[in-house]
């Protein structure tokens, strides 16, 4: 039996008959290169599922449009008026606007104003959380140059990590990034390019409770919900991002 890549893949996916699988197993047991390939198939599947598997609810508008279609279809199928019973469709899901999401006590929703981050109190503290005064020039430079996945210092011991670039629902070029103040707060934000300037569209801050400076999962949930609500496009590939950044100059 020829043990080609497709057969190894089918084996990894559990798509072979018992007899075929047994033959492949024997071959794999004797050849480490084959075993490594099987593992690569299995791991890549897991990784792809994890990376691309999220299926957030569609926008309210789309859901409403489709429900209306379903209702019209049902009416059409019912036949003559008077004989109809209202079809009970899937119960409407209330999609909570992202700013009404329950926010963990340690996370403050920051409305980004270019040049400063200011936090709204999450717990009824009267103190506002001033997360950071952004080094304007350095941030602009970083947004225009740093590739997603890379990091740079932007003054006062703060670091900027570019996470992803994408186009928003209006086709504008946006970048998701993280800003960590040394020993202080972490902000995950999205800034979009309009005309000649960057404006911060969304920011979520957390007062770091430890020194790790990592944004907690809850703030990422809030960000993801916002991305969904604003019909953000998919993250750009390296090449696309490079092209979009080059176009800024």
């Amino acid at each position, binding site marked *: 039996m020829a043990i080609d890549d*497709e057969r190894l893949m089918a084996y990894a996916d559990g798509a072979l008959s018992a007899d075929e699988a047994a033959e492949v197993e024997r071959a794999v047991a004797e050849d480490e290169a084959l075993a490594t390939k099987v593992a690569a198939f299995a791991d*890549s599947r897991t990784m*792809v599922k994890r990376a*691309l598997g999220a299926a957030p609810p569609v926008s309210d*508008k789309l859901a409403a449009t489709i429900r209306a279609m379903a209702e019209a279809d049902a009416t059409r199928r019912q036949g003559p008026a008077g004989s109809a019973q209202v079809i009970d*469709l899937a119960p409407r899901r209330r999609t909570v606007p992202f700013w009404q999401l329950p926010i963990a006590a340690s996370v403050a929703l920051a409305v980004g104003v270019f040049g400063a981050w200011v936090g709204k109190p999450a717990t009824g503290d009267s103190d506002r959380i001033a997360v950071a005064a952004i080094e304007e020039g350095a941030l602009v430079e970083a947004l225009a140059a740093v590739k997603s996945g890379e990091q740079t210092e932007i003054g006062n011991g703060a670091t900027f990590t570019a996470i992803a670039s994408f186009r928003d629902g209006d086709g504008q070029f946006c970048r998701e990034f993280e800003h960590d103040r040394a020993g202080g707060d972490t902000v995950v934000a999205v800034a979009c390019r309009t005309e000649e300037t960057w404006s911060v569209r969304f920011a979520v801050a957390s007062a770091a409770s430890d020194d790790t400076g990592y944004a907690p*999962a809850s703030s990422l949930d809030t960000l993801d919900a916002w991305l969904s609500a604003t019909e953000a496009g998919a993250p*750009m590939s390296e090449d696309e991002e490079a092209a979009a950044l080059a176009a800024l100059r």
Partner: protein
Amino acid sequence: MPDRFSDELIALLPNLRRFALSLCRRGDLADDLVQMTAERAFAARDRFDPTTRLDAWLFRILRNAWIDHARRTTTQGVTIEISDAPDAAIVDGVRDIEAVLTLRKAEATIADLPEDQREVMMLVCVDELSYREAAEVIGVPIGTVMSRLARARLAVAARMGIK
């Protein structure tokens, strides 16, 4: 009287949008494709064999709608090979930036694949169609699906340094 077809279609909207986004990479267009798909699906519902997977049937409709759209709007100049990933890779309980970066890198790696490889990857690895079901969605032989899929997964494994 409950309408299973409608209920299931509505329940599949997130999956449809995910697949649409993987094809066209734009949020607004993905919504349009989903809407077009629903329209055509309701119109053709009597042709659906309920013993088969509804999502696979809808993906085929969606993919054809995408091809129609692409044909109608042949663009000026370079078409950027774009890719997908749903709006946001929700990272369960992930607390550190490293894991987020890895996921974003995976998304970008998949974005660089040829469109035909990416598409089979989506249908089999994410939507969990069988090779045969994926072949029916795309309209190619099962062997073609398998060879594209194998190449795609090995490329991703190599780029991500999966050992």
